[in-house]
C-alpha cells in the first residue's frame, strides 16, 4: 500500500464490515456438526427405524440428536440421504 492519506486507512477499515454473527457461528460450528451428522448417519445405516425417522421427520430427529436443523444442515443431510 502506498498512501500518505490517513483517511484511506479509515476507508479500508470500512471496506470490511462485520459478517452477521449467526453466519460466523454456523461456520465455526461446522466441525462439531459434521461429526454429529456422520455419527447419526452411520447409525441410520445400521438402523432402519432411525433412517425411516430421519426421512419422515428430519428436523425433529436432528434436534433430538442435538444437531440444530439449520437450512444448510437440512440441505446437507437431504443430499447425503439421497446419495447411495
Amino acid at each position, binding site marked *: 500500500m502506498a498512501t500518505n492519506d490517513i483517511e484511506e486507512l479509515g476507508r479500508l477499515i470500512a471496506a470490511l464490515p462485520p459478517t452477521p454473527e449467526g453466519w460466523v457461528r454456523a*461456520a465455526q460450528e461446522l466441525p462439531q456438526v459434521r461429526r454429529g451428522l456422520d455419527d447419526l448417519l452411520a447409525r441410520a445405516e445400521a438402523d432402519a427405524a432411525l433412517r425411516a425417522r430421519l426421512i419422515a421427520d428430519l428436523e425433529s430427529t436432528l434436534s433430538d440428536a442435538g444437531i440444530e436443523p439449520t437450512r444448510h444442515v437440512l440441505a446437507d443431510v437431504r443430499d447425503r440421504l439421497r446419495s447411495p
Partner: protein
Amino acid sequence: MGPEISDAALVARCRNGDDSAWGELVERFSRYVFAICSQGFRLSRHDAEDVFQDVFTRAYENLSKLRNDDAVRPWLAQLTRRLCIDHLREAAREAPVEDLEPDGMDEVIELLDEAMSVREGLAKIGEPCGDMLDRFYARDQSYRTIGDELDLPAGTIASRISRCLEKLKGAMEDSGTLVRPDVG
C-alpha cells in the same frame, strides 16, 4: 483483537483437527468472504449467506488439498468467486444474464486484500485502538455508542480515533505494509 498467528500456522492447526483453530480461521476470513459476496457480486443477503456457508463448508472439506498454507486467502477468494458464479448461474436458468462476474472484480479483490492488511494492522495495535477503529469505521457506530459501550466520555472519542489512526499508520509503516512518506 490481539496478535495473530500466521495464516499458515492457523491452517496447519486446522488440518490437525483443532476446532478452535477452525473457529479462528472462520473469524479471520469471514469479513473477506462476506465482502466478496456482497460488495463484489452484490448478492442479496439470502444468497450471500448461502454462498458464505458453502465457501466455509468446501474450505473445511478441502483444506488438506491446499498446497501452500500461506496462500489460504487467495484460495478462499478464488473459491468464493467460483461459488458466487455458480450461484448466479443457477439463478440465471430462469433469467439469463450475459456476464455472471461483474466488471472490476480483480480490483475489488485487490481493495479487499489491502483492507485485510489493515485488519492485520488493527490486530497489531491492540486494544482499545483496534476495537475503537473497527466500531467507528466498520460497524458505523456513533461517538455516543462507542463512548457508552467502552465506558468513555463521548467528547473524547473523536480525538482518540485520530490518535488510534496515527498509531495504526505507524504500525503499518513499521511492518512495511504502508510506505513511509518521503520527508524533505
